[in-house]
């Protein structure tokens, strides 16, 4: 190694500064949100809070502990994540298996692949999809959030490509021992694919946790809303309040709204992901690079 030149050293310093600034850009908004939720309502409304709580108190969180809507929607979200992920993963798994076979092993593979692939590129759009969900009687049921997206074709393709990397010898040996497809799938493919299942599973869990629009669309009664849908009603209501009124009115309205409570709820909606995120990140990164970079 040469001794670093002056310009190189200068670059390293500037680079570190720039990247640190961008890092802050990723974190500061959430610190700000947390600080508001921990501040007194008056300080929050006056816009005095920056990165440190002003008039520190836990009132918002204490109030949140008694708030029925929040906990009800939190429970709906948990149900949705558990049920939805189970259905998604099961379908991805059993659908990817036959399609990972060669045309020689499975004669009808190609038509099936096209059948699924087309849906990745063309869809009916919002209104016809809504009508179908309505006609199949799912409106206002948690299944409306699960069944329409029960088979994620993109995840299935990832899974299928992973299956193909499993050595053929494993399967041949099992076949000789008398195992059928069903047994091969659960006894051989399942244990070997755990890393891949973990990656896809994590993406699925995060997807279900974060989804909110289908709740707005398909659920009529707010007491069935998952957490993110409930949060979206809070956010969209403040946003529509802001329209066609004077600045004074906006200021008055902000004084009325419980800003600390709202930010506390938003923060709690993000918290589960923020807590597990650092541990999951490496899986995501691995899964993503596998999925997007192809040789």
């Amino acid at each position, binding site marked *: 190694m040469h001794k670093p030149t002056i310009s190189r050293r200068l670059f390293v310093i500037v680079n570190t500064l720039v990247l640190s600034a961008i890092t802050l850009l990723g974190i500061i908004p959430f610190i700000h949100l947390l600080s508001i939720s921990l501040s007194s309502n008056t300080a929050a409304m006056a816009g005095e809070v920056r990165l440190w709580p002003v008039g520190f108190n836990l009132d918002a969180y204490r109030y949140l502990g008694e708030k029925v809507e929040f906990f009800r929607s939190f429970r709906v979200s948990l149900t949705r994540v558990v049920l939805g992920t189970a259905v998604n993963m099961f379908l991805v798994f059993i659908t990817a298996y036959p399609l990972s076979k060669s045309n020689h092993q499975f004669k009808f593979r190609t038509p099936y692949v096209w059948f699924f692939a087309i849906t990745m590129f063309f869809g*009916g*759009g919002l*209104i016809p999809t809504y009508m179908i969900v309505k006609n199949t009687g799912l409106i206002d049921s948690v299944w409306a959030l699960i069944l329409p997206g029960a088979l994620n074709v993109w995840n299935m393709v990832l899974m299928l490509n992973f299956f193909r990397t499993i050595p053929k010898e494993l399967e041949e040996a099992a076949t000789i021992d008398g195992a059928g497809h069903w047994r091969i799938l659960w006894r051989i493919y399942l244990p070997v694919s755990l890393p891949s299942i973990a990656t896809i599973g994590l993406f699925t869990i995060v997807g279900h946790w974060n989804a*909110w629009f289908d709740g707005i669309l398909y659920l009529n009664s707010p007491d069935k809303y998952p957490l993110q849908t409930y949060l979206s009603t809070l956010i969209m209501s403040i946003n529509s309040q802001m329209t066609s009124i004077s600045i004074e009115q906006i200021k008055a309205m902000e004084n009325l709204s419980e800003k600390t409570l709202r930010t506390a709820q938003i923060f709690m*909606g993000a918290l589960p992901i923020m807590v597990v995120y650092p541990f999951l990140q490496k899986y995501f990164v691995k899964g993503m690079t596998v999925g997007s970079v192809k040789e």
Partner: protein
Amino acid sequence: MRTLKKEYLLHLMLLPGVIVTLIYAYGPMAGLVMAFQQFEPLAGFFHSDFVGFDNFRYVFELPDFKQVLWNTIVISVFKMILFLLVPLILALLLNEVTRRWFSRFIQSAIFLPFFLSWTVLGGVIIELFSLNGPVNGLLGSLDMEPIMFMLDNHWFRGIIIGSDVWKGMGYNMIVMLAAITGIHATLYEAAEVDGAGRWKQMIHITLPGMAPILILLGVLSLGGILNAGFEQILIMYNPTVYEGADIIDTFVYRLGMFSQQFGPAAAVGFFKSVISLALVAVTYYAAYKYNNYRIF
């Protein structure tokens, strides 16, 4: 007959997926007939009257539609360019960081918003840019007038574009970093022997080495040019900024769900789907030709 017996289990495994896909993916495609109907919810697809292209004509002649189409294209073109440029610069800068823990930390921080929902991020953005939020506080301390970011068509579009780039830049950055790590170390060693500094190495080795992935990402994003970010805009906009931020998807949503104009709404959706499909087909073919990219 023998193959059928051998393969019946494979068909059986596909059955649940096929049924779900038939109903919820192909069903809506069939439901697109309503774009050509005077659709009555009570009568359904089968008993509503056909009106030919009247819905399309009606929508295209709406004064708002041109603006909506224009907004969609402007917003997504800006997003597409920034989604290549910003992560590229970040990846190049990050590649120069030699301390591993620091690099890891930055990656995590940049990646974080990607995993949060638009409800959370929308809440954060609205709070940041509100009239007495921190951004206006900063302007105030610089002796500038407060700006109503969320009610101003000019600013709001920038916030939409900027916040989406903020949310998504970590993803492409990781993909690009992976591409950089894939470049052979021997190339850099050879360049160093030839006396090329870091800058020259970047220009002559790193950037050309990344060209395939850059072109691939760019080409593939073209297929989504009519998707300007539905959930994001829906949660952040309000009637005052419809003029600058209303996109095809939000327009369809309001037309269908609030005005109950199912036929016209389906027609706009159909228009969008057809254009998108054509673009996807072309770009996918281009990606295949250039980069041998396939998904199956």
